[in-house]
């Protein structure tokens, strides 16, 4: 048993080392091709993300959302739910938080909690739609959640523009479609002055730790993991699959909605149409890069948040576009997804007849 764990850890280590190495090589090539020095660019990224207290504060603001979407995706994928709709659930949650935030007057503290709670519940309800479609119609949730993302985006924009703003701001571009600013009492307290680092970071960390604890030490968590690994096996083992599947889906939606709520109450203070910038996809990638391990999500989120903040500094200080950082991130995701073990094993058994394993691409 112990040897096996060591072997796994070793191959995981190898995987990350090779992918980081490959990403650095390709990243350097990309940056050099743009006529900049890679080390200089990296220096600016580091300076921009962790260089000063203010920069760290702004980085924390991005880490919060990365942590939460990472947690939402981890729960879904660890339990065999292909929830691609995190983006849509974030939108629904964010809009509800904004509406509660500006329209109702409540004492400070309570107001923020109410916002977050409503946001989470709305996100959960939005996740209920694909879950029910899967349960009753057996429609693969992969496609419904994908499509519901687009619907959520348009629906929130519609509600903001035609219900909240009364259809006033026509033809002004989507940037001007926004709800009124939320009240002071609904805003999350800031932890570092003159930045948007808010106490959401503690909520996010708590969520991740709870998730980690849940999967490691509780029976339900174990059952969910089993479903994610082999649904039929779990069924034979007497797990109530329907209940567990629904639970995983709803928790995932709940956390996505919470993420949307924290984005609004902690950073934006108002709902703007198409504000999220593919946050939901980030979550899926963070979860995959960290191999669905909640603790690893924390580290990956720090990198993700740092890159997001640092990229802006890099763009200011050099001639590079900040999109280059996104491209490098994508390269990293691609390289991490490679199954190095099987490639190495293939090399090892090259003495044998060339008989590749044709299963590639079958398992989602």
């Amino acid at each position, binding site marked *: 048993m112990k040897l096996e764990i060591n072997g796994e850890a070793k191959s995981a280590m190898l995987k990350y080392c090779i992918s980081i190495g490959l990403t650095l090589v390709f990243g350097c090539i990309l940056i050099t091709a743009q006529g900049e020095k890679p080390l200089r660019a990296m220096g600016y990224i580091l300076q921009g993300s962790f260089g000063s207290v203010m920069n760290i504060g702004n980085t924390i603001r991005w880490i919060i959302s990365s942590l939460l979407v990472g947690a939402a995706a981890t729960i879904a994928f660890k339990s065999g739910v292909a929830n691609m709709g995190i983006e849509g659930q974030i939108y629904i949650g964010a809009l509800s938080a904004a509406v509660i935030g500006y329209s109702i007057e409540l004492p400070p503290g309570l107001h923020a909690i109410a916002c977050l709670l409503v946001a989470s519940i709305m996100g959960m309800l939005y996740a209920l739609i694909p879950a029910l479609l899967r*349960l009753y119609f057996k429609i693969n949730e992969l496609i*419904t959640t994908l499509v519901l993302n687009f619907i959520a985006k348009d629906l929130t924009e519609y509600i903001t*523009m035609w219900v909240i703003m009364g259809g006033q701001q026509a033809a002004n571009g989507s940037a001007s479609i926004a709800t009124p600013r939320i009240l002071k009492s609904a805003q999350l307290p800031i932890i570092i002055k003159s930045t948007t680092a808010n106490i959401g970071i503690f909520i996010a960390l708590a969520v991740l730790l709870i998730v980690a604890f849940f999967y490691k030490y509780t029976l339900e968590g174990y059952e969910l993991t089993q479903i994610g690994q082999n649904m039929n096996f779990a069924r034979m083992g007497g797990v109530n699959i329907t209940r567990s599947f629904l639970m995983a889906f709803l928790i995932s939606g709940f956390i996505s909605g919470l993420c949307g709520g924290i984005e609004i109450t902690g950073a934006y203070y108002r709902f703007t149409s198409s504000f999220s910038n593919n946050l939901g996809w980030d979550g899926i990638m963070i979860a995959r890069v960290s191999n669905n391990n909640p603790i690893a999500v924390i580290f990956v989120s720090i990198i993700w948040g740092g890159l997001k903040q640092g990229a802006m500094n890099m763009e200011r200080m050099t001639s590079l576009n900040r*999109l280059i950082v996104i491209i490098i991130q994508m390269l990293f995701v691609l390289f991490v997804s490679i199954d190095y073990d099987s490639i190495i094993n293939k090399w090892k058994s090259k003495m044998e007849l060339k008989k590749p394993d044709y299963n590639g691409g079958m398992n*989602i």
Partner: protein
Amino acid sequence: MMTMLGILFGSVTWSATFRLSTPIILTSVGGSFNKHTGVFCIAFECFMLSAAFFAAWGSYLTGSPYMGTLFAILAGLLLAAIFGMFVLNFKANPMIVSIAMNFGAWAVTTLLLTEIFGVRGYFHSPKIVNFSPIDIPVLREIPYINEVLNNQIILVYIAYISVVVGTIIMYKTPFGLRLRTIGINEIGAQTAGVNILKYKWIGLAIMGIMSGLGGAYLPLSGLSMFSENMSSGRGFLAFAAILVSKGNPVKAALISILFAYTNALTFTLTSYGIPSQLLQMFPFIAVIIVLMIGNLRNLSLTPVIEASE
């Protein structure tokens, strides 16, 4: 009432439907071949967006929409090859590769937009030469049909021809039979002597070429422009069409036409004061309704989960 009928069945709406279905049909027919080889792929957004960019660029450079389309096809092929390399050779998870590629394509095309044309958001230029409409003399005499089918660009006709050709290849040739066998039973196909890896690569290549064509339609259909995130969900619509039709090109085309129809209604209905955001939701709601109707026979009042197919 008459105006409503005019909107629903008018030649304007159906002409737009005929036109707008092109990119989705092309992509979904190509993806059907890939679907039958059992390679999971949702990177159509990536293929279409990149192809759209290269079509615009190629047309800008050479002044010929045909060269632009060639650029687009090559881009589609190259990206399909990258996808295949990761999924088939490196055994990467196809879903995560697709997501990374979709996202990466957005970043790369937006970056190239600023690097090559020096603009943000969108690039419009008369130098991006469009396809010119083709006038078919035979159709000129028939009143309604003429307005719907005539004077479309060549890619529209290619799309509908590809449905027929794709169906014949898939269901009437030994090649198609072998291709479908892989999807039904991979080990069985291997035992029967089919070179599985070869067929998977062929499926990917067809997907790349067709998505390239589909992407080329976007900038060269009369817009003369490329804008950031131009494919805007069409790749996912194509994926939905493939999934619902289970890889049958004719069914996939019909579903694509439905999506295009809901999309075409958007153009006519916006002038009646219906919010555009609601209209933009139509195709996506149509996806869910189609899925529900398609899965009606699976309906069970006691919820049961089965391992996904």
